[in-house]
Every structure is written in C-alpha cells, then in structure tokens.
C-alpha cells in the first residue's frame, strides 16, 4: 500500500473524512457563536447548552410526541430558537450597556442552569436516538466504510454554513445586520427596527446550535453534558478563525476537525489539546485570528 510519512494513504483518507464530519459540527457551532459575537458583541457561553437542548428536544419529541427526525430537524431549532429569543428579551437586553463580561457571565450561568436541569430530570446516562431509516446503512468508499448518516452530516453542515455566510455577506438583510453592528443609532434613525434585528440574530444563532444538536443526536448518546466539553473547543475555533468572522468560523471549524483527526492517528493522547495548542500559536502570531481584521 502507498504510504505518506509512514502512514498508509487509506488511513489518511479515512481520517480526513472523519475529520470533516467532526469539523462539520465545529463549523456549525462556531458559526452560530461568530454570528452572535459579530453582530451583538455577546460571548455566548450557553451555546453548548443550547446544542444539548436541541438534541433533547429531538429525543423527547420522538419519545413523547412521535415527532420524526425530519420534522425534528426543523421543529427543534425553532423551539430552541424561540427560547433563545426569550432569553435575549428577558436577560441579555439588560446587559448591552454594560461590559461584555456581564453577558459572558450571564450566559455561562444560564448554561449551568440548563445543563443542571437536564441532568436533574434525565440523569447522567446518555440516551440513544435511532438513526433515521432513510439514512441507515453504510457506503464503501474503497478506503473506508462510511455510515451514510455521517456523510449526511457533512452535506447538511456545508449547506447550512454556506447559506448563513451568503445571507450575512451577500444579501440586503445581511448588509442591514452588519450596518446595525457598525452604527445602531444611525440605522435606527433610518427607520430600521434594530432591537428586532438583534433578537432575531440571537434566536438564529441559538437555532444553529440546536440544529447541530439534532444532527449529532443519532451519532453520540444524548446527555446533559454533551455540549459542555464541545463548547470550549468551539470557542477555540472561533478565536482561531477570528472573533466574529463568519468565513473564519466555517473554514477553521472544518480544518481543525481534520487536524484533530490526524492527531488521533499520530499521537492520540494529544487529540483533545491540539486545538488549544493551535489557538495559542495563532494568538502569538496573528492575535486577530486567521480571518480576523486587526
């Protein structure tokens, strides 16, 4: 078998594919964070908790109401997005005039409350969410066997990321949103309802986290803590990509998934810290992040 640096090509291609699957989750989660930070200046520490809520909404919808996977893909982000809107109206709105640290503390506390409540009601043992029948089975890529569901995750994630990027960077709505972050009072003077934009942004960002949660439910066990370890990595991804940069979040999310995948082959013990090592290097060499504007 052909080898590159002593690693068989089949292994490299396999890890590349799996890295893209994990990177898809990183990209979708960091995208939501980047949108919320870029447009609102809020460091949303509750992102991981909303991700877990998305997965739980899908699971409970299936168990209690018989809502299938396809409906959950729409309904769960919608429900969690509405909750996000409530959070913005009730709490976050009070904090915009204060130091951004207060928003961070508030969302961190909120994450603890959400995860603690899920833990209280549903315990620590995870629950299984079945892979939808239409996406069951595997495809043989020649170099590896890939479950169809994982391929689906990559497809959905790239579609969602591209759409979000397009809306924000290339449409009139996006232009208005960006204008709101530059100079909100002026935009308001033009008759644009800025508070509505802000609340929609938070709801949308949170819905993205919930969508990632629904997508991940059939892949890993649904637990209250499923977002808490992920959110730290995702923050590192956002910092590497450049705080608030949409494209940076997407590209570095996918890329770091792949880097992590290779670390799992070369030096598995370091696979959970490699992202942070890269973050440290980026902060030293390019403090604004790879795609950030200094």
């Amino acid at each position, binding site marked *: 078998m052909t080898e590159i640096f002593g690693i068989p090509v089949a292994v490299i291609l396999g890890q590349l594919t799996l890295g893209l699957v994990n990177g898809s989750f990183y990209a979708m989660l960091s995208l939501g964070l980047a949108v919320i930070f870029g447009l609102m200046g809020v460091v949303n520490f509750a992102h991981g908790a909303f991700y877990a809520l998305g997965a739980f909404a899908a699971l409970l919808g299936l168990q209690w109401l018989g809502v299938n996977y396809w409906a959950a893909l729409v309904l769960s982000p919608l429900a969690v997005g509405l909750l996000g809107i409530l959070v913005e109206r009730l709490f976050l709105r009070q904090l915009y005039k204060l130091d951004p640290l207060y928003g961070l503390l508030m969302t961190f506390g909120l994450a603890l409350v959400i995860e603690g409540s899920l833990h209280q009601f549903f315990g620590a043992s995870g629950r299984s969410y079945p892979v939808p029948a239409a996406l069951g089975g595997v495809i043989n890529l020649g170099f*590896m066997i890939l479950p169809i569901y994982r391929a689906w995750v990559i497809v959905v994630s790239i579609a969602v990321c591209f759409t979000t990027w397009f809306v924000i960077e290339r449409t009139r709505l996006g232009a208005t949103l960006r204008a709101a972050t530059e100079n909100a009072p002026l935009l308001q003077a033009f008759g644009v309802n800025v508070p509505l934009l802000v609340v929609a942004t938070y709801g949308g960002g949170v819905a993205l986290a919930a969508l990632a949660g629904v997508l991940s439910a059939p892949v890993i*066990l649904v637990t209250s803590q499923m977002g808490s370890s992920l959110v730290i990595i995702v923050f590192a991804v956002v910092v590497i990509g450049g705080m608030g940069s949409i494209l940076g979040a997407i590209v570095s999310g996918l890329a770091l998934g792949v880097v992590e995948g290779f670390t799992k082959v070369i030096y598995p*013990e370091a696979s959970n810290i490699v992202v942070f090592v890269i973050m440290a290097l980026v902060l030293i060499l390019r403090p604004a992040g790879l795609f950030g504007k200094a």
Partner: protein
Amino acid sequence: MKLKTLAIGLAAVFATMAGAQAALAAADEVVIGDIDDLSGNYADVAGAGAVEAMKMAIADFGGTVLGRKIVTLVADHQNKPDIGASKFREWADQNGLNVLLGGSNTGVNIAMAKVAAAKKVPFFVIGAGGASLTNEDCTAYTVHYVYDTTALANGTATTIVQNGGKTWFYLTADYAFGTQLQNAASKVVEANGGKTVGAVRVPLAASDFSSFLLQAQASGAQVLALANAGEDFSNSLKAANEFGITKKMKPAALLAFINNIDSLGLQTAQGLYLTTGWYWDLNAETRAFGKRYFEKMKKEPTMDHAGYYSATTSYLKAVKSAGTTDSDKVMAELKKIKINDMFAKGGYIRADGVMIHDMYVMQVKTPQESKYPWDYYKVLKVMKGEEAFGPITGACPLAPK
C-alpha cells in the same frame, strides 16, 4: 488596632466552639461519608442511587448503632482527586467522620486512600476499579468491595480467549483506570495463549471515537477490547456498531454497568461479553433488593448500588460486634467476619483489602431473548472469588505473598 484584636479574639472563640461541636458530634453519632461523582460522567453508575442505597442500608439497620445515631455526609468530587482528598480530610478533621465510602473514579480514590491512611479512617472503595488500590496504593484502612480490574480481566478476557478470540486491540481510556485495565487484560490474554496486536489511548470524554475505531479495524485484531467506562464506553460501542466494526471484530466490555446497556439498547449491545460483581436478576434476594430500589429510583440498581448497601451494612455490623467505632478495632473485626447478604455469599476481606466474593461473566441478551424490562444478561459463568481476584500479588506491604 483595637478592632483587629477584637477580630482575632472573636475568631479564636468561634474556632474553639467549632472544635467543641465537632467533638460533640463524634460522641453521640456515627458518621458515614460518601464521596462520589454526583454530576459527571459516572453519576448514574453510583451517584444519587448510591446515596439512596446507603440510606436504605442505614434504615434497615435501625438508624442507630451502639446507641448512637447514624448520620451521613455526601459530597461530589467532580472527578478531581484534589477535591475528593480535601473533602475527606475536612470531614475527618471537623465532622468526626467514622467511615468513608468511595464512589467512581480510580484516580480520585487513590488520592483518598492516602487520606484514609493518614487520618486512620476505614475506607470502602465501591465504584473505582483500579487494582492498585489493594496493591501498590494499599492501606491498612482500605477495603476494595465490589470489583477490580484484575477480576474484570480474569472474567471477560479469559472467556473470550477460550472462545477463540486470540488477537486483541485495546481502546484504552487515558488515565489510571484505563491503563490498569488494559495491563490486567493483556496479561490474562497472553497467559491464555492470545496476543495483543495494538492499543490506542483515548483522552477521557472524547466526543468522537470513529478515528480510534478505524485504527482498531486496521490492526486486523479479532477482539475490540474497550478498556474504558461510562459514556466513553457507550459512545465507542455505538460508533463501532455504526461503522460495521462489530461485524468483523468481537467487542469486549472490560467494564460495563447495567445502566450503560440500558442507554445503548439491546439492539446495539447484544452479544457483548462483560463481567459484573452483581446483577439484580440473579436470585430471589437480589430481585427483592432490585424491587425496593426500583420503587425509589425508577431503574434497576447497578453492582455499585448493591455494593453501597452491602458495604454500609458490613461496616455497621463490624462496629456492633466490635462494640466501638475505633478504626483499628473495626478493621480487625471486618477482616474476621463473613459477608452474607444479597450482594455476596461467604465474602471475606483479605489482608490486602480485597473483598473476595463471586463474580459473574455475562453475555448481553438479544432483543428476542429479553422477556421483561431490564432483562439484559445471561450468566455464562460464576467465578469463585479466589479465581476472580487471583492470588495476593505481594505488591501491598500489608500482605506478603
């Protein structure tokens, strides 16, 4: 200046009062502590259910011993050795702690064993598996009650090698427990004519196992040995199924609890070999305990839950027959008595601290074989305690070979 003197004076008064109170508590109460993972990865293996089991045992004992009220203290170690050890030290110094039950996590339990030795407090390890707790990390006050890595390996690894699984690849949790489990298993595998062909050390609480599983598959080994626990075990087995790896490799759970099987579902877990110290559906006594526990917790108990009940009872019995809570006298009594209850028959505590009792090699039932809720295991083999836990190794200075 005056204010400062006053403050110091007040502090001194409070300190004396606190001291007096602690001493008072110790005089008319027997204090049983439990330090466990109450909020993390292992919270359902022992956790709140274990606290309930401990309280059931105390209630069944009558709530008092030697005319003293039995009280409990509970803390969450959050899987951090420093928190576990400092809480234990605090209780021993200030709350008159008489005995500690240690929940999950070998790393934390090793740290707590050092406190047990320093403070001379009997310490029952329930949820942690590392056999080092009764070998190089042993103390005169440690009792390893439910299972250890040696017994798990002797059960599961021997059975699989004897059934033809000769070449092994390990997916190992990268901390004390995982490496001890892998070492114990590979020794057993090699002693039975099998071979280790590879291993990968996976960071604790990884979010994705597929990369590691592909490495396992590429090794060409016959057996995929999961030397991990809790959610890590469940997620790795789930992914192994999804990637079709379990069709070619035989999965071996070096440690699985019944709540893991419940969350995975029999469809995913069927056919899995595992070793357990107790199962709720073994006989009338175990079923009776299972039923009582189920009424409170709405799920069947794990071996740790049964172990918490049994260990609490054993300690209280030893206190009663020793007529004192003096640690050395209670430990001497504990090492004399036979443990006969729903958890163990003819169990006894060896010089190195291992509680020798029967272990069960199980296979997870198929969905067709399972007839009622929580009907998950069939017993393949009952291992006698001496066979399961093996001979004294000599690594513990208290128990020469």
